[in-house]
């Protein structure tokens, strides 16, 4: 390997190259295509739109690293948001104090953890396929939410919550700060903690992880609980950003979180992948969305382009693997 590439890999990690290249391409292409692209307004809107999707993607990330999937994240976020909303309403609605908000947030996180706990227990102890377990949990949570709200939305929250969705500290949007905090927490958890190490072990080979003395069941339960908690954080951000909670909100993010993970170089079978490339991939997706928006395309075309991007990335990966084989 030549020296610059080696140095790049030493600093960023080999899996950073793809997302960073994509980021550069997006910046250059849209920078030329639209004079309004490389302005503060674009990055401002990206900074406000990114966090919901970003935190949900982090919720998807850990289960994928274990070789699973958590399809229930969006509805877990909804149910957690509802929990917070009801706690606020029970404590005076618009006049609710910060205490009620803290209590509600704690309850929301607990609800997220509970949904993850159930999934984790079923997956760990019955070895049912995570796709199926989280899928039925998703159907259940959607039904529960629709049943409890009758399909309507809940709004009317105290004004001090709005800054969580719309405010800025030192020019940096608060939701973005929350996302960055979550990214750092996930990164440290996965790269520095025993749980993170166990997560990768289970993803590469659950049987050998078990035989080498890991309590795989405990790790799986914890991973899904953390995933649920992360989804709950996304639910709280969504509540603050839209000043209302509705079941089904953010549903379209579900498959996009998976897309973001794969774009960020996560191995679909688990075991390999890091948080930071996923974060860069998220920025690429969101910039792409904003750029297309500036060029006059609508949200649906963006969805299509995201899908095409995923195919292109997978094809490039296949090509590079083939290339490496030929060189060898």
């Amino acid at each position, binding site marked *: 390997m030549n020296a610059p590439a080696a140095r790049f890999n030493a600093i960023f990690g080999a899996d950073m190259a793809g997302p960073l290249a994509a980021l550069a391409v997006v910046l250059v292409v849209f920078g030329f295509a639209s004079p309004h692209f490389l302005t503060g307004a674009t990055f401002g809107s990206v900074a406000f739109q990114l966090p919901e999707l970003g935190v949900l993607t982090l919720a998807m990330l850990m289960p994928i690293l274990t070789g699973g999937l958590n399809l229930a994240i969006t509805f877990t976020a909804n149910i957690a948001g509802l929990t917070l909303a009801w706690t606020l309403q029970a404590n005076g609605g618009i006049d609710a104090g910060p205490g009620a908000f803290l209590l509600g947030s704690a309850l929301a996180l607990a609800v997220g953890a509970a949904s993850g706990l159930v999934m984790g227990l079923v997956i760990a102890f019955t070895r049912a396929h995570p796709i199926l377990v989280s899928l039925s949990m998703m159907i259940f949570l959607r039904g529960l939410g629709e049943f409890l709200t009758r399909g309507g939305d809940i709004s009317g929250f105290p004004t001090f919550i709005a800054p969580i969705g719309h405010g800025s500290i030192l020019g940096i949007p608060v939701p973005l700060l929350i996302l960055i905090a979550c990214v750092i927490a996930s990164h440290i958890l996965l790269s520095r903690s025993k749980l993170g190490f166990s997560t990768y072990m289970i993803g590469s080979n659950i049987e050998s992880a078990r035989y080498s003395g890991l309590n795989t069941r405990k790790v799986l339960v914890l991973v899904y609980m953390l995933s649920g908690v992360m989804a709950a954080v996304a639910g709280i951000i969504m509540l603050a950003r839209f000043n209302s909670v509705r079941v089904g909100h953010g549903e379209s993010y579900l498959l996009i979180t998976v897309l973001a993970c794969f774009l960020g170089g996560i191995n679909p079978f688990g075991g390999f992948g890091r948080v930071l490339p996923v974060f860069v991939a998220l920025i690429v997706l969101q910039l792409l969305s904003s750029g297309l928006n500036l060029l006059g395309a609508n949200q649906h*075309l963006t969805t299509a382009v995201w899908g095409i991007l995923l195919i292109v990335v997978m094809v490039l990966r296949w090509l590079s693997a083939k290339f490496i084989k030929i060189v060898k």
Partner: protein
Amino acid sequence: MRKLFLSHTTEFVLFAVIIAMSIVLAFTTDRFFTLGNGFDLLNISAVNIIFAVGLLVVLISGGIDISFAVAASIVQYVTALALERIGGGGWVSGLLIAACIGIVLGMINAFLIHRFRIISIVATIATFNVYFGLLMFFTKGVSIYNLPDWLTSRVIIYEREMADGSWAEITLPVVVMAVCALATWFFITRTTTGRQLYAFGDNPEGARRFGINIGAMQFIAFGWLGLMAGIAGLMQAHYAQEVVPNALYGRELDVLAAVVLGGARLGGGKGSVLGCVLGVLLVSITQNGLNLMGVSPFAFKMIVGAIILVAITLSSARIGNLVPVFATRKSTGDRPADRGES
């Protein structure tokens, strides 16, 4: 008999659950155990069963597909436009067009999966986004209501007037559903290709060494699902008498849950048409029963989700995995981990 039961446990259990539920519902509601309601159930389930038997073939071959419901939406829309262009058409031309578009969309998935070695769930999540995004972009979300008369008028295959003056009817989708289910059953159990699909799904590498053409398997499996999705899309348009671009959005996960409830295994090599049909029917009967018992429609999904969760838990658990949790703990792998933490 014992052998039959052991080889078809899921089907027998599902059948028993359906019978038990039906008996309870027959006594608790006046309408459940009527011919009209039974036929309604079939009419409602027809489209989902067509989807389900198609998805079953892909699951047996070891793949998974998220994009088929959206592909069916494209089929509906393009077929409606094509029929308008050729001046109406009829059932034959309609089915032909729908089937062809469906197969092409399925083949795109197979091509990506086979040619570029993309894992099927990743490939179909990508095509899901591409299909749906492009469909909504080009249609701008506008529905089509002026469908040809032959497509929207109900085709009643069998009808009978009930004592209370209402009509019990079996409509065309049910017949199409039966044909699709039988064709799939014949295809996967009575043809060499079908057996090869099972072998391929169970052990791709073994199948390859045995001389089975891997690429052909992918194209056949996804092509079959595409065909079924195309037919189901047309039947949905017939049933709903309109084409709404996002009407089938989200249907894929419900169908997937029902198929797996019917005993198909993610990972391939296992599953039967009967189980698949029973899985869809169980979900429909649950919803129908809850409806007749006067339960709020908002609670349906919650209860259905809980039932599927419990069913998957019970069917996946090997005995000794659920109950004597502590027994296995003492003997095998979990013990060293406890030591490692202390």
